């Protein structure tokens, strides 16, 4: 069982299980959506003193922070006990493309160390990727009112038109970054 679980899970296992998590939370009376935690954290540290928007009763949202703490533990468990080497079987064309940006061994680990490591944080490229990327993620999800979990999974499953618009936006932004901006960023 452990050995089977240690293999990478194919999409048709992962996707339906994500839906089950969403339904489980609905059974607990909650709407699945992770990016609202970013707002809750702002409220918790007292952002309401400067910006009224954060003057909310964040105690109602603690369940979601607990959920996120669980996901972090889940990541630790997966890495420590259910891991058979971390390689990601990405396609040959993606590998060749990334090698042309001097990324060593694309797919050997989950993330390229050239971009995502403590030493990368000492480079301009690392700063732009980590700090700049994080800012865009936080700003964008709250502006759109949700992220992949809230809009793409929950909203689309519930056939909500607003979520479809948001997901179209996600892809427009992602395509612009991947095809028009990253080729320059990666060569910095």
């Amino acid at each position, binding site marked *: 069982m452990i050995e089977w679980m240690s293999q990478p899970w194919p999409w048709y296992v992962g996707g339906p299980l994500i839906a089950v998590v969403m339904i489980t939370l609905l059974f607990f009376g909650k709407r699945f959506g992770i990016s609202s935690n970013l707002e809750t954290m702002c409220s918790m540290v007292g952002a309401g003193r400067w910006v009224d928007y954060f003057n909310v009763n964040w105690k109602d949202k603690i369940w979601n922070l607990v*959920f996120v703490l669980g996901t972090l533990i889940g990541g630790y468990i997966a890495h420590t006990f259910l891991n058979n080497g971390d390689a990601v079987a990405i396609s040959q064309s993606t590998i060749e493309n990334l090698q042309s940006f001097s990324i060593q061994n694309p797919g050997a680990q989950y993330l390229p160390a050239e971009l995502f490591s403590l030493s990368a944080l000492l480079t301009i490229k690392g700063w732009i990727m980590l700090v700049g990327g994080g800012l865009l993620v936080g700003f964008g999800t709250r502006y759109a009112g949700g992220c992949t979990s809230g809009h793409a999974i929950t909203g689309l499953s519930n056939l909500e038109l607003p979520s479809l618009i948001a997901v179209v936006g996600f892809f427009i932004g992602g395509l*612009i970054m991947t095809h028009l901006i990253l080729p320059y960023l990666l060569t910095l």
Partner: protein
Amino acid sequence: MKFIKYLLTGIVFGIILSKAEVISWYRIYEMFRFESFHMFGVIGSAVVVGAILLLMIKKVGAKDIDGQLMQLKPKENGFKALLFGGVIFGLGWAMTGACPGPMFIIVGYGTPVFLVVILSATLGAFLYGALRKYLPH
């Protein structure tokens, strides 16, 4: 104690996203280059299975743990906020390879530098709150 069920559900979710490789930057990069079906399969099958389960739940009038009807309140946002916010998020998603869920899972998975991404995403959420009244919605 009432929070333990959320902790356990979160642990399961963290394991699922780790093992389905959703937290891998490469998978997101590949998705936006249309060079693999993997991520489209994950998101697509989650939505299809989710939609079927939600229809069944509505049909039988299933109740939640508190005895209330299980239903999702639709999100209500303006078109501009959805589209502009969505595009801005998409730009960041393609850079970090992580949406708000995976960025926490990645820290647990052993890449602590993602704490920086979490911090800057929280700052991004704060900036949205601060600038909200000047933005088109």
